[in-house]
């Protein structure tokens, strides 16, 4: 075991995957000489050369499209999208090509592409540098979607993602990049839990708190704070958003009967909506209260000085915990307004 940051763990994972398999190539903007803007690819160019660590033109669709061609040719591209907000120019290639080629060719073509995305907010960044686009990818069949929350998972799951013959969108929370944790660099992939298994990050008995990636740390803090008030929260780090490990999730919900989901992405049609729907389908008769979502607001990501009001914090999570426990909370008394007001003012006088 070695203590290291997530940045170093991902770097180590890349290095190991490249050493193990000469077909693994790393590509993206500034990944070579600079070592990436977050230094994730630091040292790889020196070690593996420019044929395997490719500084690409500044064109995300071009990067993703050529990765498709490399994969067709038997390579295993690991693509770095420099920041979450810059994946959109590549969206067409990811959704129409990367995700579908295997299906279109009835399995004849594999797309072992790993798409690494430095992700989400909380670091005071400029516009387009704090997006949470995970739901777009979860909605796209043919992709696996991973969101890591600690150095050990980052290291293991990156290697698993690269080894996978499916395309994997691999989200790295920028906010946790420099948090340290123990990493077992010698872990044998054959023995590691498969990519996609959820992790019970903290056991509890009253409420199941489902979360992933950047919010895991906040969720754990909330669980500690709740304990002081006599509430026992079980925190589940989903790790995989597609597919979701519902076995772990439902086992917890059946135990606690209460569910709160938290993520930084906006609420509407977000991953939380999917989780709540699926949990309700599977555990309806076990639920003691309507599941609650604590998410970013349904707004474009705000300027840095206001992001603290957007990203769910410990208090907003505890507020939702109070709701599922039917304790006084910020929504108490608002139900009346909700039913009265929703259904009045609308665009063009229509009822919305």
């Amino acid at each position, binding site marked *: 075991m070695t203590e290291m940051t997530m940045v170093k763990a991902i770097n180590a994972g890349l290095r190991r995957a490249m050493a193990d398999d000469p077909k693994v190539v790393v590509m993206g903007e500034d990944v070579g000489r600079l070592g990436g803007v977050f230094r994730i690819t630091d040292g790889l160019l020196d070690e593996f050369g420019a044929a395997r660590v490719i500084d690409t033109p500044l064109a995300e669709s071009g990067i993703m499209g050529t990765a498709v061609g490399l994969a067709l040719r038997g390579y295993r591209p690991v693509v770095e999208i420099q920041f979450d907000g810059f994946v959109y120019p590549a969206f067409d290639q990811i959704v129409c090509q990367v995700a579908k080629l295997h299906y279109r060719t009835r399995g004849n073509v594999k797309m072992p592409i790993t798409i690494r995305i430095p992700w989400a907010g909380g670091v005071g960044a400029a516009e387009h540098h704090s997006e949470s686009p995970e739901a777009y990818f979860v909605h796209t069949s043919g992709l696996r979607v991973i969101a890591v929350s600690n150095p050990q998972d980052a290291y293991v799951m990156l290697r698993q993602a690269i080894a996978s013959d499916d395309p994997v969108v691999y989200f790295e929370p920028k906010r946790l990049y420099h948090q340290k944790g123990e990493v077992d660099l010698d872990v044998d992939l054959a023995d590691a839990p498969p990519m996609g298994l959820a992790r019970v990050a903290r056991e509890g008995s009253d409420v199941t708190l489902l979360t992933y990636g950047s919010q895991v740390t906040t969720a754990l803090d909330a669980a500690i704070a709740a304990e002081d008030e006599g509430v026992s929260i079980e925190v589940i780090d989903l790790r995989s958003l597609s597919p979701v490990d519902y076995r772990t999730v439902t086992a917890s919900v059946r135990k606690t009967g209460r569910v709160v989901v938290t993520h930084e992405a906006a*609420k509407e049609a977000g991953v939380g909506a999917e989780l709540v729907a699926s949990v309700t389908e599977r555990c309806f008769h076990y639920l003691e209260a309507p599941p609650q979502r604590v998410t970013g607001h349904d707004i474009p990501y705000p300027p840095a000085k206001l992001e603290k009001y957007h990203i769910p914090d410990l208090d907003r999570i505890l507020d939702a915990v109070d709701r599922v426990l039917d304790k006084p909370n910020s929504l108490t008394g608002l139900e009346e307004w909700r039913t009265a007001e929703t259904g009045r003012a609308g665009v063009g006088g229509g009822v919305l």
Partner: protein
Amino acid sequence: MAHTLTTPDLAVGVDDVARLLTPDGERIADPDLGRWVADVDHELLRGLYRDMVLVRRIDTEGIALQRQGQVGLWAPCQGQEAVQVGTARALRADDFAFPSYREIGVNFVRGAKPADFVIAWRGEEHSTFNPYDINTATPQIIIGAQTLHAVGYAMGIQRDGADQVAATYFGDGATSQGDVNEAMIFASSFRAPVVFVCSNNQYAISEPVTVQAKYPIAGRAPGFGIPSVRIDGNDVLASLAAMRWAIDHARSGKGPAYIEAVTYRIGPHTTSDDPTRYRSKDEVERWKQRDPIARVEALLRAEGAFDDEFAASVASDADELGAKVREATLTATSREPIGVLDHVYEEPHTGLQEQRREFGAYLAGFEASEEASR
């Protein structure tokens, strides 16, 4: 107007450019560009000098403010003042500019106020100025996106039968984006009155221009049916002349025109960047010798049009502007928490109204408990 493009290794060639002012500040003739600045006298030159000094001052102030934690990030423009100021000065107030995040000089010339340079980088707003106030679009961070906006705007000008032009600014890296190439196709197909200004500052963050282009960037435009010119971007006169040519071309209904300004970014890509990882001190020093401001000063001095009094007045203007930029930063105030929900829609949106109500009640809970504890 197409400057000679011959061998394919010219993408990095920095001297195969049209210029009117040598790096030593000597005024020279250029058969194509010269006539566009025949009217430029000492007064106009001194104005360009002053603009560039003020822009550099905004830049140094911005860097200092970032180092002091007052703004989150800064994208320096030192070394690129000539192309920014020279081209922007050729625009009419009713033309419309579409800059990237680095075009401090363009925004300055267009009339941006001190706060406009810092508030967005401070993270208070995504955009401070109202684009229609200074006919300049909000600085763009998504590489290349603004080029398409400029073409669309130009198509609107066309439909209105107006004689304005749109101008768009972008870097060498941006030329790799699909958007920029699509913008050129649209502009050419529709003969849109738009001017493309590529500031080739040699790097896209760490990647040298050769990662984006093996052939001079200006050489691409003719392939789209767009005439182009490759100029010395550290020469404010050449920048002004080329832009006057390009604008005249667009304004007179002949369609788009393209300028590649060969220049250099002296500082880091942004204050988060470490340029020592990808370029040598020598290279930076060599480019410092081509400083766009020193070049004009040398010319003005040689012609006896630069004296202590002028230097002092420019310096005091710069001090004053620097102080205003600093003050705008230090006196900035953040919006109320509920403000995160503002301006998402123009018309009421019941879903968001509900979230506003919920978040408002949630925030009120803190106020109530604060009051109770008083």
